[in-house]
């Protein structure tokens, strides 16, 4: 008989880190399954997290598939399910089903320069692909990260970012000026135009708020990137994760299955319903 795709597997929260506080808090969770169930995923894929009694939320996996011991999710507190996840402690149990979605086509990107452009929580899906590239460093060309948030307090993975500087180029930004901030001040798209990454043999991956993505894409186009060189992720309301419930439907696509990763060339062909 076919497996029941709607039944989540139980997993334990093994580690919680508070990334961002304040009114829009972000926490990073690591989870381990109870039973070994061959949960293998590609970077950029998502999983449906369950808090029993509250419901399910589709969250992108922020760890790299190269690490097999745990799954990592960075979650912005937004609604019923994510609020309840934020109340969870280490050792608490949640449900996970998946993975869902297409993931980034990293195999096709070998020997290319990768430019990651993120805003706020948008670093989560990037984090997975970025660490995959770092893990197989010899397969890729130059790696660059351009990342920003409203304030320095809103940046996720702060300590990891400092570590990252040793391994690749990192450009950070904050939206408004603040004391002791030595890097770029302004929105992420402006930082992109400021740092002028070269489109030559490059792939740009951008995730973040829709308005940021829109202007980052515009900036990349201005810098000479072709539609096929730009990748982004789309998010829509999802319930089933397997292309049946119809919620994330855009044109002939179901984002949960056919997305969430799209090249700008592909995305342009879809109706703007995201």
């Amino acid at each position, binding site marked *: 008989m076919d497996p*029941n795709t709607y039944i989540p597997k139980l997993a334990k929260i093994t580690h919680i880190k508070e990334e961002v506080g304040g009114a829009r808090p972000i926490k990073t969770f690591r989870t381990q399954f109870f039973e070994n169930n061959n949960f293998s995923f590609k970077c950029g894929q998502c999983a449906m997290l369950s808090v029993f*009694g509250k419901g399910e939320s589709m969250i992108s996996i922020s760890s790299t598939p190269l690490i097999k011991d745990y799954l990592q999710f960075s979650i912005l507190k937004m609604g019923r399910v994510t609020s309840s996840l934020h109340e969870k402690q280490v050792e608490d149990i949640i449900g996970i089903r998946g993975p869902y979605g297409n993931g980034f086509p990293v195999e096709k990107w070998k020997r290319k320069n990768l430019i990651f452009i993120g805003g706020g929580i948008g670093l989560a899906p990037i984090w997975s692909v970025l660490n995959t590239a770092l893990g197989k460093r010899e397969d890729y060309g130059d790696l660059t990260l351009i990342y920003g948030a409203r304030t320095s307090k809103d940046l996720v993975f702060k300590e990891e970012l400092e570590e990252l500087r040793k391994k690749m180029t990192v450009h950070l930004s904050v939206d408004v000026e603040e004391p002791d901030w030595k890097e770029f001040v302004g929105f992420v798209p402006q930082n992109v135009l400021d740092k002028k990454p070269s489109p030559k043999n490059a792939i740009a991956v951008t995730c973040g708020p829709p308005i940021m993505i829109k202007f980052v894409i515009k900036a990349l186009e201005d810098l000479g990137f072709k539609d096929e060189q730009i990748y982004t992720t789309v998010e829509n309301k999802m319930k*089933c994760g397997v*292309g049946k419930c*119809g919620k994330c*439907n855009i044109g*002939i696509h179901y984002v949960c299955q056919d997305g969430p990763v799209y090249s700008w060339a592909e995305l342009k062909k879809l109706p703007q319903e995201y």
Partner: protein
Amino acid sequence: MQKVLTKKSLPQWVKKLLSYTIYTPVEEDDHWNFVATDNPEDINLDYPLTTLSPKKIIFPQREIFLEFCDSTEGNPEVKEVLPAEKSAVIFGVRPCDAKALTFTDKVFGGDFKDIYYWKRRNQTTLVGISCNTPPYTNCFCVSVNGSPYSKEGLDILLTDLGDKYFVETYTKKGEKLLNLAKGLFKSPTAKDKKDLEKIRIDSKKKIKRQIKNIKKIPPKLKEMFDSPFWDEESMSCLRCGICTYLCPTCHCFDINDEITSSSPIKGKRIRTWDTCQFPDFTMHSSGHNPRPDKASRLRQRILHKFLYFVDRYQNYQCTGCGRCISLCPVGIDLLEVLDKVRDYGS
């Protein structure tokens, strides 16, 4: 297999099937509905069209996925809940409603099989009835590659020949039903076959409503995504769920946790029908809504049925039953909308 069954023997046949759950159309208040019965005399094949199609049996409005219990101590218990194992027969399925199930088959099939749907689908035998006269004022099956005697999705099709039914089986499931009452079924005579042909030719002619040149519609819709047409057409829409809930092909759903006890947390994860016509269908948690108005939601319904589904599965996601037209509280006429789409700008 082709047979004939006298009308008088129908209850006798049904009597042999009582190990199945048997559904038949029943008149309730002012409408018809499929209802389970154990009385063979209840079977009624002379009826117009049920308000809810047999979709409600194969893909019920409410499906329990799992039960959970999460106390503060110990691990949460999660128990999978599956539909009960009980074979069923639905009598009097209209060919359009059966064909609709071949579309939901596609959606609930694919790489991830929906075992709730398939369990019910596989244990249900569909006994259809040809529409010798259109059962509904807004029938238009012929326009969407259907017919009043289409066999798609059916296991058995009955055609009323006056005092008897012409019986055709198309699947093993269907033949099994006949084999349970072998003596009742006779081989059709040449006259029976001739009568059947005549009835079929006539039945197609009786369908009055139609869409001309439907092939022109999908490419036209592709161009019309940003057209102000949708604002105009959706002016009278009320954003209720009738057109989609009653559509035999619509399959969208929602999944929610419903709580029966809060300490310990006990409840069920439940699938319920949902519709693209409700504003909360696509609304993100942030309040952002990719389809924020009636116009975009009407467009989604039409485009999904006559463009996206066609691109994905090479079929219109519509079987011409006419429910969405007849039951729309403000008389939005799908055929009129499609006519306008086809002729838009020309």
